[in-house]
């Protein structure tokens, strides 16, 4: 898939969360790893989003791309699927040398991250995935 194609992937059709990702983490390292990974994500993901927003505000495309790339990667590993897809969309726009729509996209990521945070917090605190 090339960059242009992946920009057009339908995010709306992506389930917000992917419980299979959490099952994988349990397989890799049990509940202990799952809880630690969730804690790191809940700490790191908002920081990456702030970094992306700040970079966009200062026209720093490479830093914005790196922040959204990190957010995409961590979100996919933690099952925050829609955060991951939206971040990938922003990353691809920035890699193509544009910032068109990225500020709005960051707003959408923020809202999805809130939803993912609620879900992951519940899993960490003993709820079901």
């Amino acid at each position, binding site marked *: 898939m090339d*960059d242009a194609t992946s920009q057009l992937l339908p995010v709306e059709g992506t389930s917000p969360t992917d419980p299979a990702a959490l099952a*994988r983490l349990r397989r*890799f390292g049990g509940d202990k*790893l799952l809880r630690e990974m969730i804690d*790191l994500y809940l700490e*790191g993901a908002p920081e990456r989003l702030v970094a992306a927003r700040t970079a966009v505000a200062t026209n720093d495309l490479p830093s914005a791309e790196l922040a959204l790339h990190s957010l995409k*990667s961590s979100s996919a*590993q*933690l099952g925050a699927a829609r955060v991951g897809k939206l971040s990938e969309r922003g990353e691809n726009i920035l890699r193509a040398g544009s910032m068109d729509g990225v500020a709005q996209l960051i707003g959408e990521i923020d809202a999805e991250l809130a939803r993912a945070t609620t879900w992951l917090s519940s899993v960490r605190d003993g709820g079901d995935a």
Partner: protein
Amino acid sequence: MRTIAVVEDNADNRLLLQAILDGQYSLVEYDNGIDALAGLNASLPELVLLDISLPGMDGNEILIRIRADENLRHLPVIALTAHAMSGDREKYLAAGFNDYITKPIVDETILLGAIERWLPAGGGRLG
């Protein structure tokens, strides 16, 4: 136990690699290229897992420096990347990486298989 260097800036990815490789390999971790190049020279691992998207010096630049360093150029280096575009594998192999693993890590046997494939034969198994 055989030693693998992990160059990865994201703490969550480092933790995941620890969980998957713990007990099988001894890991030495670096979160940036400058520290990694200094550390690799000071304490030579048998293999390097190298993230591509790093702040400052990225994985491609680190690889160029590894391949240009007489002490390091023989090291097997496996790219870790969440860039999963078609043709990327060929691009990274052509750049001098020995192998290429995509993130998120879904099937740990692909990572373990790549490590086994590229670790130099012999050495360290009794340690």
